[in-house]
């Protein structure tokens, strides 16, 4: 997927198209960061890294157990709302928001 940030063939590199490609690469950056956090809290803290967190006690279990049953869901929520807020702001910055 190396073509993600390039413009479509045949269009002249106008100001608007440059802006759109800047918008898209900014979007991809936000998605990448969000998905790293998404994977870290669920597959990381909740499952694979749980043995590392086993020393941190939390409410009768360990922190990994909390992430698996509560924490990851709360982080997912925060991520989706952050993404919606950030993207709606990015839309305006690049002038691509809906009328």
């Amino acid at each position, binding site marked *: *997927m190396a*073509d*993600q940030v*390039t*413009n*479509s*063939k*045949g*269009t002249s590199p106008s100001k608007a198209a440059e802006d*759109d490609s800047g*918008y*898209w690469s900014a*979007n991809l950056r936000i*998605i990448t960061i*969000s*998905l790293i956090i*998404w994977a870290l809290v*669920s*597959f990381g803290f*909740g*499952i*694979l890294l*749980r043995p590392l967190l086993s020393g941190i006690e*939390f*409410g*009768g*279990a*360990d922190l990994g*157990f*909390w992430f*698996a*049953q*509560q924490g*990851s*869901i*709360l982080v*997912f*929520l925060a*991520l*989706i*709302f952050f*993404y*919606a807020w950030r*993207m*709606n702001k990015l*839309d305006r910055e690049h*002038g*691509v*928001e*809906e*009328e």
Partner: protein
Amino acid sequence: MDQFTINLIFVGASFAIYIGIAIWARAGSTAEFYAAGRGVNPVMNGMATAADWMSAASFISMAGLIAFVGYNNSSFLMGWTGGYVLMALLLAPYLRKFGKFTVPEFIGDRFYSSTARVVAVICLLTISITYVIGQMTGAGVAFSRFLEVDNATGLFIASGVVFIYAVLGGMKGITYTQVAQYCVLIIAYTIPAVFISLQLTGNPIPGLGLFSTHQETGQPLLTTLDQIVTDLGFNQYTAGTSYFNMALFTLSLMIGTAGLPHVIIRFFTVPRVADARWSAGWALVFIALLYLTAPAVGAMARLNIMDQFWPNGVEGEAVSVETIENDPEYDWMGNWIQTGLLGFEDKNGDGLIQYYNDANPDMQAMAAERGWEGNELTNFNRDILVLANPEIANLPPWVIGLIAAGGLAAALSTAAGLLLAISSAVSHDLIKTIIRPDISEKGELLWARCSMAGAIALATYLGLNPPGFAAQVVALAFGLAAATLFPVLMMGIFSKKMNSAGAIAGMLTGLIVTLAYLFTYLGILFIPGTNLLENVPENYLFGISPLAFGPVGALLNFLVAQAVSKTSAEPPVEVQALVESIRIPRGAGAAAADH
């Protein structure tokens, strides 16, 4: 007033609301029938999505799955919520911008191919039809337990109600009924959980109560539970076993969730791209209310049950048969024994019922010493946990009526969403596009209604005569959604150079490889005895369980699609321009209007 009358009032009142909404929200155009006229408020759509998503499995089965397995089944909690992050970031806003009505329609237009569209329809129908069978049987079970009618009668009543609001109102009717159904199901789920959390920990919020102090023992609730279950030879509640398969299974559920067509189409109903982003967040808020509560319900119910069987602690004497039969606190057991979902047997004839794990070799010495001759709780169906919870905790009869209405709301709302995905794929993708492209708007609306009626008839038939593979439905639906639709949708948005040959080859690879892997261990078409290899971990390819195969199918889909598209012609310029346009929100209204 007896329990039956109370159940009847609660279920009857909720059905009256659904039918009232159906009459109010009739669909007058195909845009209303397929996408509720794209006028649904994002918070409302979030609520409808939550009801659409949370099925009989979430409402009835999930807490039981967690209660009897513990930490390892956290996969369901993370998998069935984490998929919304993928949907919100990778699919929903772009598909809303595309502004059409069905998932195969996007695949057909983006990959400029009717073949791609038909392959997508086949994937969609396989996923949605298998999924709907479970909902119909779930509704039938809830009816027969709470309204004391037989299974078939229950199923006909359920189908009749869905028929009224789905055929009349299409997506519009379904959306507003789902909002009402969400309210019913979340109240029904939360009230007993709050009471039980208060009883055990003094904390009214079950998700917090789970990590609080158990009032009776003065130590954390989870520590108490761990001690009791390990003393009786069961696996430690908070301990994990196979981290690798757990991670893979979680990923399978996440990708599968994001690729389920009946959930994706809900995001076509909001007015703007920005609304689609917010709406995914609201959907997860409403889903999280149940999913944060479910693990608490599971752990607390397990503790309550242990406590009922071992009222004097595990060192003391077990509960006696006489107590179970006469003490009002144990009435719920009698009710459920009648349904055949619960059963005990005094094997050693001591008049007491010992509940322990007799398969654990460490327990055998202790059992011999104490004169036990095997686990005497011979049958405990996990699905009764949520339904019996209010009775176990001694809550008033109206709470039980509420649970009955809630279970039915969960099953019916998901069934209706699935039926819309099925019928719109038939009327819009097959009839309108492939068979009779010259059909008028009015004609298509009629066909949409007929397809809906046909889909309901098929679902009812399959609910009455469930095929042998009903139990494998979840694995099949999620595995296929993960391996077929999710990758192809994502590539359609994020890779401008992906062409039709690549997409078709990718989808077919995902479909065939996933089916082949499932059939190898679970039987051809899930017919018992036709499996090529025994379904045990030693036989699995790289130790991957068939239930966790979705991500592997998805990966193969991606790889094959990339390889094929590299060796064939680039997509036409106008298709590349289409990809450019769905990546930016500007002009979403126009995209919808030119349809």
